């Protein structure tokens, strides 16, 4: 479907002790089903705010957000979020963290229309499949405190994917990781997205990550009152290989466009709030 997610005339203003703070203005964007969209911009440009609006964690002060032609009224497992700080519950094992999500969506309390509640064995299979997808079957019975940062982030991704969401929302998921782990997880994400054909919206401020992973890059202007500056279609053929693309002229060109936007036309000016 071409207009799977529609964002129409969205504005977001926050009330602070110092008055009204306009975070976003005049956001108009459509995302097709199965598309991978990257939101990129400097710090403070409202990327996370926009992601939270799509997730339904906040409601816009003006405008409307639609997902599958229905207004986004609140958060839900249909729009699964992968947080920047993995947000795994430290007193549950990795298996139990993913099971919590699976149980909620597919178990007795689930809200899936037209589907019966699944039994525990089926839920167990789903959880194990999700962990296998991110290659963490061996760490299923460990607690988050016992695994590395990259592994924790992978469990977060497993949890989000296990809910079979319509949209996968990722807020700088690899920002807290070292460069090597980041590269590995980016490659894994490419594989997973190819397999599950998910619609993904990812916030990042890594230009290479944006061009490598996405079909469309949404470049935001500087905050406050940030808006969409430019949208770039990335038509590189899939499956994408990091090593091959490094010398691909189109990749280099796309990269240049984004860098030009970020560092020349929208070079970050330190403003006093």
């Amino acid at each position: 479907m071409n207009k799977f997610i529609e964002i129409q005339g969205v504005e977001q203003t926050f009330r602070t002790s110092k008055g009204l703070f306009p975070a976003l203005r005049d956001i108009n964007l459509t995302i097709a089903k199965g598309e991978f969209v990257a939101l990129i911009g400097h710090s403070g440009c409202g990327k996370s705010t926009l992601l939270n609006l799509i997730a339904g964690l906040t409601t816009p002060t003006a405008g409307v957000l639609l997902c599958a032609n229905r207004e986004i009224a609140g958060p839900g497992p249909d729009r699964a979020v992968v947080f920047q700080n993995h947000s795994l519950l430290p007193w549950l094992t990795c298996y139990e963290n993913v099971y919590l999500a699976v149980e909620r969506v597919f178990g007795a309390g689930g809200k899936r229309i037209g589907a019966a509640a699944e039994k525990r064995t089926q839920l167990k299979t789903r959880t194990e499949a999700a962990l296998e997808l991110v290659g963490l079957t061996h760490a299923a019975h460990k607690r988050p405190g016992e695994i590395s940062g990259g592994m924790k982030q992978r469990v977060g991704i497993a949890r989000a994917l296990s809910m079979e969401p319509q949209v996968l929302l990722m807020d700088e998921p690899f920002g807290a990781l070292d460069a090597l782990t980041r590269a590995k997880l980016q490659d894994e994400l490419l594989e997973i997205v190819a397999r599950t054909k998910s619609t993904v919206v990812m916030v990042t401020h890594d230009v290479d990550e944006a061009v490598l992973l996405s079909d469309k890059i949404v470049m935001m202007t500087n905050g406050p009152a940030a808006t969409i500056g430019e949208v770039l279609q990335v038509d590189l053929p899939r499956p994408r290989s990091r090593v091959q693309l490094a010398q691909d002229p189109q990749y280099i060109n796309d990269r240049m466009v984004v860098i030009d936007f970020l560092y020349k036309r929208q070079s970050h000016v330190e403003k006093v709030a």
Partner: protein
Amino acid sequence: MVSAVFHSPAERARPVSNLASERKAAVPAAVTLASVKAPGYDWRGLWLRVIPPVLGLALLIGIWALVSLTSKGSIPSPAQTWLQAVDVFSDPFYRNGPNDQGVGWNVLMSLQRVALGFGLAALLGIPAGFLIGRFDFLGRMFNPLISLLRPVSPLAWLPIGLLVFKGANPAAIWTIFICSVWPMVINTAVGVQRVPADYMNVARVLNLSEWKILTKILFPAVLPYMLSGVRLAVGTAWLVIVAAEMLTGGVGIGFWVWDEWNNLNVKNIIVAIFVIGIVGLILEYALIKLAGLFTFEEVKS
């Protein structure tokens, strides 16, 4: 263990036979490295861990002996008190009458009252803390009340307890309750407010039911705060029971202290001081151990 031996280019240029003999010479060296003697007794560890507390205790006893000497006998010496303690503990569980029991029974009576008062405080205080922390309106409603009532000395509540409950035992339990409840309410409420927003966002995205949020997120996250509230409460409760028992009489370690004062049996008072201190120490230690079981790395931070 010789794991990585980096040969310089010059070494590689040497003839093979030399290298072979070099390797033979290296092996005995590796063997002697492995057979290094285990270090001797850890004297330094002993010095740091055991000697200072022992010296502290010795200092206390020394000052005590000095004070005893200068007071010309009205304060008993450590030696006399020790003999008395041996006598008291030789039969800690005798019963001669309703007000004449062994020290063991007295301590147990006091602990029982603390347990009851404390248990009631936990039963009421912890759920109240959850509600106050979770719902802003209730927080605003009850915080001024808590701030008003908290600084009141528990002993000031004792007459009201005697008036309402018409008995020493219930009044003492009431006093324990009213002094233990505040730390538990406040700490639990703070714990609920300190649950990281990320966990609550996860709950929202997963659309968890209120019960699941309570059992899977709130309760485990608040547990460390709850346990520190419990520790504070137990310390205060044990303090208060002694004072309350002194005032109300009956049975218990506090009553025993006051009774021995009326009999001018100063040695027993000092024995009681040590008993109270040791029991308090044991309670605190047990709770620290319990708290340690439930703290996870990431919740601590």
